[in-house]
């Protein structure tokens, strides 16, 4: 169980009012589940996600992962805890001058695996999970976006973490590649029981993948529901932002400062909709690698 207890994160911003990026959020994420966090840009999603591994230390509240209170650890303890919490990013964040294999080795090196042979073997194993076996000697610049994100997933998985944090992992990818990456995340969740926390601004991503959803606005979690509700006829979230996100479209641009002022009006000028359809991923992993989406994309990549 990941447990955020009354977590707040405030950023000082010079002479101006401090920015409250995360405002008194409490959230419990059951082990082995996929938790979606959705909201518009600036809602505080990334900060909340970064609160979980203390990449951003909360200014108030407690963060628990399993039996450990991360907010109570010293630097050394925190580093050790982080070996159990993988993280992937929108921009992949690979080391450009290292090969794919070396990039994955990095997490093992940081986790204290001293033996190079062992590191290489485990890195290759992790890359196999995301089906990157023939590009291990390539550099990130030689990969497609989807492949880069898969390498990043392998890097996060190599230390066999219990939790995988994903900050907009598919926002830089086209819908097709998005589906593949989400499929890997779903497979990893079912095969290894890893708890996945995924931040996104797209309800399609949530629909495709999540068990539970938390909707964020202005630093607060304004509502939570089970993702299965999204498929139920007549389901309507209680907040206007929730209703909007659930509706047919996805906002890609919003009018002026309105975005963070609350009282969001989806019909306002400047709000654009576009249809980005992401196929649902299979959550039963009897034969995950035979998945349709998967096979198609693999065929296309090679």
């Amino acid at each position, binding site marked *: 169980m990941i447990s955020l207890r009354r977590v707040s994160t405030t950023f000082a911003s010079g002479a101006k009012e401090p920015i409250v990026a995360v405002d008194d959020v409490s959230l419990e994420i059951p082990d082995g589940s996929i938790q979606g966090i959705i909201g518009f840009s600036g809602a505080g999603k990334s900060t909340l996600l970064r609160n979980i591994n203390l*990449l951003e230390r909360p200014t108030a509240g407690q963060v628990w992962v399993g039996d450990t209170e991360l907010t109570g650890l010293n630097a050394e303890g925190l*580093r050790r805890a*982080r070996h159990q919490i993988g*993280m992937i990013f929108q*921009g992949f964040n690979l*080391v450009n001058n290292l090969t794919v294999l070396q990039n994955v080795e*990095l997490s093992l090196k940081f986790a204290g695996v001293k033996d190079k042979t062992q590191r290489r073997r485990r890195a290759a194993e992790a890359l196999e999970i995301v089906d990157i076996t023939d590009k291990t000697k390539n550099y990130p610049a030689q990969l497609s976006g989807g492949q880069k994100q898969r390498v990043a997933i392998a890097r996060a998985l190599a230390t066999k973490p219990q939790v995988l944090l994903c900050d907009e992992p598919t926002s830089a990818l086209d819908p097709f590649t998005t589906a593949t990456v989400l499929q890997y995340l779903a497979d990893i969740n079912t095969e290894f029981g890893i708890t996945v926390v995924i931040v996104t601004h797209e309800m399609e991503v949530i629909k495709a993948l999540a068990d539970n959803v938390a909707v964020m606005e202005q630093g607060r979690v304004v509502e939570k529901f089970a993702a299965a509700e999204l498929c139920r006829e007549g389901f309507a979230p209680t907040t206007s932002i929730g209703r909007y996100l659930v509706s047919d479209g996805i906002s890609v641009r919003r009018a002026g400062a309105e975005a963070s002022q609350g009282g969001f009006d989806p019909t306002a000028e400047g709000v654009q909709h576009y249809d980005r359809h992401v196929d649902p991923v299979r959550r039963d992993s009897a034969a995950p690698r035979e998945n349709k989406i998967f096979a198609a994309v693999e065929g296309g990549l090679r």
Partner: protein
Amino acid sequence: MSFDIILDRLPEINQAMLETFAMIGVAIPLAVLLGTPLGIWLWSHAPGGLKPTPKSHAVVSALVNMVRSFPFLILLIAIIPFTRLIVGTSVGTAAVIVPLTINAIPYFARLVEQNITQLGTGAVEASRAMGATRGQIIRNVLLVDAKPAIIGSITITTVSFISYSAMSGLVGGGGIGDLAIRYGYYRYETETMIVACVLMVILVTVVQYSGTRAARWTDKRVSA
């Protein structure tokens, strides 16, 4: 143009080249050795860095700026007592190496700081998330990704200091630039000056060419 003059001057030209190599060959490696950690320190202790210590950062940064702002000629004179302490003399090639190095360290450090800043924070973030120590991040991520840019900085520093070293004549440091000044400016031996200048151009070109090649060789950001 008389070739006899040049032939007569060959021993001096030879000697001057050796002096230039000595000055650059000692000052630049020392600047790289000491300037790199200083540059990394400046980056990681700056506000928003890996380990922000705003007060000591401000002090070190001011010191770096101070040394950087001294015109080389003034520095050369100003630190004569220090130079004498280090190499036992205030004249000659060895005596020029000291101010050259003192000037090159902060110069190079600023370049390295810049090189690291330009990497962006992505890979560092990912490393922090992986539970890396600061040392691990510096060794395995920053220096790895900044390597091509740092090689570029070594090239720039070398070229700049070949030029600075021409001012060594003030304390009898010699070198090819000084030769050009002494024979060309004071003795109107245009031939010698031209040869010295051509040698400087060749030297700078070779340094720049190899530096660019080495930087490109180590840079894996563009698909080959």
